[in-house]
């Protein structure tokens, strides 16, 4: 094919031929370089999983040894007293930069201001799988607390030796070790004496109980908050390098399309424009955004795509392609009641959950720079180490030649696990021989990112005359198994998840399938309560054995005024939903007002229990935000697609919640000092959709079983 972009294919071939074999064991060498650069002070590391370093059961210095690879977090105290914490977790607005710093400050007995968090940098921070699953608070939090407590212990030991006094009785406070007997005190920085002391943690240090927390457990403002109200913070799209070009990808006509023909001669002729064609990838690099857009538009590409299904056929398609996987996703207990069992009332229904998009306000973006065979990429991702692997595989590089840096990023919600923009920017930068920055358009983000899985859920249930659940049969098609287990007692239950052939690229989304499973389950529970002639709250309290979930329901109901609610038939209704997932207990009450086909959610009260609260300020913000985000999936958000194309890839067509949709929101935190702290980024989203559906049913008697519930912004006719 005589095409201006042809030489690029040869370039990639050359690249392949020159590929370097992976040398995974050199990782330790890279880490050592880092520690040389780190300078003097005390460095404490924690073995992955929190277990003592496997190389040795005893405390040891490791300057003479290769650094253990399986380190999950580091803490460094410089002679200036500056504390630096290294963790592979990343900040996407869930505010862990703040809550993790609080926990370090708590155990190290220093002020928040003296701590600097280095996060999500594949060179500087220890390996981390990624920031997802609400795992930061229950896992990284305690790890950093252990590291900090051990550092405090080491510093106490240094002071004891220096003063030739027993360590018992020495007090660590405000970044100093003090001897109350003599009145002497030395700052942490002074205690390092300019030496380099590096240790891994040997055993579990005693941690401060949550009830005694002075910094953690209290409201803390967002770290670097000022930078975000002044525009000073640099997100990935804001970064720049000298000589940098702007990248743009020429997208296929449809999903799974192959490039048949490509004439890039017009784009190639534009001054300063570089065109890359490699397999089915076509992209341009240009001096600025406008030129990049013009050049990409000037590429004449012909694509061939297979016939694909449309959103109208979605649910039938999922049922048709469903698989039964014995054992893995199926669970049965008890025996089914006889078909003619007396006194049983049965209810069978199907629920539908549409595909929705994360639509983070910061679209996928990356800045890539090559130095010889070494690649550095800045990108907003929940898995910097995953993106590092993606890049290493794409360009046949040894892992340690790829450095991924994650600036605090503008939203992710489970949608930024992958490194598409990173790979694209790196491919263009490789061809252009200059750094390339690439920012996805909103249409690209709505089309070429992945979606929350659509699903169908069938439930067949029965209640007995006393209002106990006698049977619970539950089949989830494609949504996923998260929170598929019911917190309700049932004499018989069969619960099954059926994987299907998804018509769209799908992946994780805030709470995964817990949204879908709670929508179906909690809608069904409301109807079972009505069938049993019981109040929806009483019915739940009777059938839920877990006292913490019952407490959350009671708390939300009390704050909401559930007992005093006054429904107006056809016009005002009240709904309740509750659940448990990822260590968090949630209960949500909603009030709706209806006028003809117009719906307004007027008030939402949510109680949430995730154990000992680390930062009540950040936690409230997360819960309020989850309610608002959940409102979108409940009412309006719906990815429409046909034949491999997304039909509504714009905010003018895909309606996310706005100020006009905002209900009055009240949050009731249940702070359990004696319980382990769990994350809160996900579970607070699961209650809102069923609470609204139940409120609509309460007002109108009509059960809406398909998400989103509104059609063109109104209740279905």
């Amino acid at each position: 094919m005589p095409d201006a972009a042809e030489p690029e294919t040869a370039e990639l071939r050359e690249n392949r031929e020159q590929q370097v074999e992976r040398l995974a064991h050199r990782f330790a060498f890279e880490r050592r370089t880092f520690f040389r650069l780190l300078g003097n002070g005390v460095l404490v590391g924690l073995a992955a999983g929190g277990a003592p370093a496997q190389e040795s059961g005893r405390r040891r210095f490791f300057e003479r040894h290769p650094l253990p690879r399986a380190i999950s977090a580091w803490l460094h105290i410089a002679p200036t007293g500056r504390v630096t914490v290294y963790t592979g977790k990343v900040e996407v607005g869930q505010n862990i930069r703040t809550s993790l710093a609080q926990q370090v400050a708590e155990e190290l007995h220093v002020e928040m201001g003296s701590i600097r968090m280095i996060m999500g940098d594949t060179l500087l921070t220890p390996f981390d799988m990624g920031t997802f699953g609400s795992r930061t608070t229950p896992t990284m939090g305690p790890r950093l607390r252990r590291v900090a407590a051990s550092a405090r212990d080491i510093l106490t030991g240094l002071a004891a030796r220096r003063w030739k006094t027993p360590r018992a009785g020495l007090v660590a406070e405000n970044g100093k070790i003090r001897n109350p007997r003599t009145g002497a005190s030395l700052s942490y920085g002074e205690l390092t004496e300019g030496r380099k002391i590096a240790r891994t943690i040997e055993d579990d240090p005693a941690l401060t109980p949550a009830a005694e927390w002075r910094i953690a457990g209290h409201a803390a403002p967002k770290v670097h908050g000022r930078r975000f109200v002044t525009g000073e913070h640099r997100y990935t799209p804001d970064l720049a390098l000298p000589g940098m070009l702007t990248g743009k990808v020429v997208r296929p006509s449809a999903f799974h399309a192959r490039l048949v023909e490509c004439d890039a001669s017009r784009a190639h002729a534009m001054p300063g424009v570089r065109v890359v064609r490699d397999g089915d990838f076509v992209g341009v690099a240009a001096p600025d955004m406008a030129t990049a857009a013009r050049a990409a538009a000037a590429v004449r590409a012909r694509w061939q795509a297979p016939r694909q299904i449309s959103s109208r056929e979605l649910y039938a398609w999922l049922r048709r392609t469903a698989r039964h996987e014995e054992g893995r996703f199926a669970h049965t207990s008890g025996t089914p009641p006889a078909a003619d069992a007396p006194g049983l009332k049965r209810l069978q229904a199907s629920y539908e959950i549409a595909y929705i998009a994360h639509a983070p306000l910061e679209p996928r973006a990356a800045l890539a720079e090559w130095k010889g065979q070494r690649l550095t990429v800045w990108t907003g991702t929940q898995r910097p180490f995953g993106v590092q692997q993606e890049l290493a595989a794409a360009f046949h590089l040894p892992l340690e030649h790829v450095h991924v840096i994650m600036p605090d990023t503008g939203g992710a919600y489970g949608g930024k696990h992958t490194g598409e923009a990173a790979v694209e920017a790196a491919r263009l930068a490789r061809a252009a021989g200059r750094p390339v920055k690439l920012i996805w358009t909103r249409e690209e983000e709505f089309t070429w990112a992945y979606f929350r899985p659509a699903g169908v859920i069938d439930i067949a249930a029965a209640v007995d005359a006393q209002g106990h659940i006698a049977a619970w049969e539950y089949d989830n098609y494609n949504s996923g198994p998260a929170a598929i287990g019911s917190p309700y007692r049932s004499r018989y239950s069969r619960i099954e998840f059926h994987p299907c052939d998804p018509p769209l690229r799908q992946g994780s989304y805030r709470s995964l399938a817990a949204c879908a499973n709670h929508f179906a389950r909690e809608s069904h529970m409301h109807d079972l309560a009505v069938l049993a002639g019981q109040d929806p709250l009483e019915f739940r309290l009777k059938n839920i054995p877990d006292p913490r979930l019952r407490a959350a329901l009671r708390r939300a109901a009390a704050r909401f005024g559930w007992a005093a609610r006054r429904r107006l038939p056809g016009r005002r209704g009240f709904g309740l939903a509750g659940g448990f997932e990822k260590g968090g207990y949630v209960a949500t009450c909603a009030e709706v007002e209806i006028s003809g086909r117009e719906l307004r959610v007027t008030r939402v009260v949510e109680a949430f229990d995730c154990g000992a609260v680390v930062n009540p300020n950040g936690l409230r913000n997360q819960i309020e935000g989850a309610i608002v985000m959940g409102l979108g999936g409940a009412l309006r958000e719906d990815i429409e697609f046909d034949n491999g194309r997304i039909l509504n890839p714009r905010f003018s067509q895909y309606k996310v919640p706005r100020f006009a949709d905002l209900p009055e929101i009240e949050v009731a935190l249940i702070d359990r000092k004696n319980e382990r702290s769990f994350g809160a980024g996900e579970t607070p989203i699961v209650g809102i959709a069923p609470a609204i559906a139940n409120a609509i049913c309460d007002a109108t008697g009509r059960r809406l079983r398909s998400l989103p519930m509104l059609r063109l912004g109104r209740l279905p006719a």
Partner: protein
Amino acid sequence: MRLLVNGKAHELEAAPDELLLWVLRDKIGLTGTKFGCGEGECGACTVLVNGRPVRSCQVPAAAAAGKPITTIEGLERNGRLHPVQAAFLRHEAFQCAYCASGMIMSAAGLLARNPKPSERQIRAAMNGNLCRCGTYSRILKAVRAAALASRKRA
């Protein structure tokens, strides 16, 4: 063309189809103004032109030439935050904060022309700005607080 940004004149070359957003970000280096959607639907790119909120992703730079333009970087006065910035910070009216620049500019534009907005007016003025983290309640609180603080200061 000559752009007057935050009280400073910039002489630069820009093609007729170059949007104010990208000229501000890429040619002047003011990256506080964000790209969010490119169709004027999310408000992340909001700046003030002649004191009025404008979606800079919808305006060719040429159309703003010669007019006073204020971006998020131009709100501070002698190291003191604008009342809207201060209120956003105090109420922590953000999570990922990618929307914050646009939110603050929309609110600053509103208060400049209407120092005593009603609740309805605040919601109407802010409705073109999206926050995907869902911090709307806090943003409303911050805008109310900023209005009060501005009036007290005035």
